[in-house]
């Protein structure tokens, strides 16, 4: 993964360039929706700018951004508007978004991950894609390590049959 020095990170735009894909991926993994993921990403960086936090190192900054992303996604997922929208989609039989449809066609792995329940998707993504350790995930998400482990284990158990179906 590309390294990022503290010297160059002083520019807000550079921080956005570097971390925006990560924030977007986490948001997308969480909400499974492009437009919502974009909104969350914008919110996160807007909050980042307004907070004007001083970070000890890049890990600290990254952890702050991931935490903020998860919280923003949770807020959106649990909002009344989102619940209303989700119920409408369920009634109409539209279980997935356009992006998800595209994922289904292109890669079975990403598709399988997106089919997991929300809380498992985030943990799987942080562990396998962002390469965070269980301890780091625990600290960032505020979940106990044992819970993270059990969520990972359950997510793997859920993924196995789905991946078997597609020949893995």
């Amino acid at each position, binding site marked *: 993964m590309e390294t990022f020095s503290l010297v160059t990170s002083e520019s807000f735009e550079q921080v956005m360039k570097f971390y925006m894909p990560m924030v977007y991926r986490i948001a997308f993994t969480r909400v499974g929706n492009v437009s919502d*993921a974009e909104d969350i990403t914008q919110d996160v960086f807007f909050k980042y700018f*307004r907070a004007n936090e001083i970070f000890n190192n890049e890990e600290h900054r990254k952890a702050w951004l991931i935490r903020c992303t998860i919280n923003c996604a949770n807020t959106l997922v649990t909002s009344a508007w989102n619940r209303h929208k989700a119920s409408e989609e369920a009634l109409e039989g539209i279980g997935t978004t356009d992006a998800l449809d595209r994922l289904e066609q292109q*890669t079975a792995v990403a598709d399988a991950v997106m089919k997991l329940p929300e809380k498992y998707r985030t943990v799987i993504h942080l562990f396998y894609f962002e390469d965070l350790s269980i301890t780091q995930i625990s600290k960032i998400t505020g979940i106990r390590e044992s819970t993270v482990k059990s969520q990972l284990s359950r997510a793997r158990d859920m993924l196995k049959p789905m991946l078997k179906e597609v020949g893995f």
Partner: protein
Amino acid sequence: MDFREEYKKSEKLISPTDEQLQKMMSAVMSRIESGEEDTKELNITPAKKAFPYKKIAFIGGSVAACAAITIAAVNIAPTLNNVPTAERAGSLSASADDARQNTALTTNAATTYSADADKLDAESATEFDTSADSLEDCAEETAPESFVMPLVPESSKSNGYSANDNLTDNSLSAKDCFTAECEAAEVFETLEISESEVDEVILTEEPDVDNATDSTKEPIDDAHKNPETGADPDLIAAWSQAVEDSPLVCIEDFDCSFEKPLTKLEFTSADSENDTLIIGDKTYKLTNHEEEDEWSFTWFSMSNEEIAALPYEYFTTGHFNEFQHIYKIFFAEDRCFVVYLLGDAASFANPQGEYVLVG
């Protein structure tokens, strides 16, 4: 298959395109330039869990329920020893059966009640005679002459609780005598014949101040006892005098309102020879002769005159038989306060010797 590698291959699918990135960056910058206020608080810390009121209430309720059951059991257990004898229970159940038979319509509660009342009156009158006779017999047979008012005869020392257990025995035990005495006092109240007689006694007897103050050690002479009511005129007179002379009459700082008195009472220890009774910020010395027993305290919502007019048995038998070891009676404002010894009557050796009057 390495899941991590496979999953990372899908990076392009879940990552934003350059167009999306530019769009989002410009949107963020425009929001910043427009001076948009972030009204929401920074939501970077997880929401704290709500205080578990329900869990605490559940645990607290369970503990309170257990405590209530325990306290109830502790309070009920001693009273079981004072349950009327088998004879008494049998007669009551028999009267209840008679009443049921006599009243064809059991749904008529008023009729049933009056029938029960008639039956019980008749039973009580009969039992009064019986118990009075048995009491006299008991006093003659078992109590030493030196005992003036043998509420618990000397024989109860040796018999102890075994007297309770031997209810089927035909011999008259100390417990039977005591129970008979309790019943007699109940009948006094039921038949309402004691008050007038006691009033007469009070009017005829001169109050003895010396007796009232110095009767802490001396047993009361049985010869003065009213043969019909069992009330000791000297004692009653002493109480009457105590109402006027007691140094404890004025407890200025003691709140006698119904809710508070007991909360202000403290005994420094239950086993010391010189216990102290603390009422509010005042301390009173008590002499506890029964080291293993516990002093307790109660009070009556009666006027001094009403209390003074009551016979000694009113406190020592019947409904108030738990006060048989009255340690001290004193009056404050319009209340009568009684300090007494808790415990089963049969376990006490010599109540007379420990009896202390006000002053």
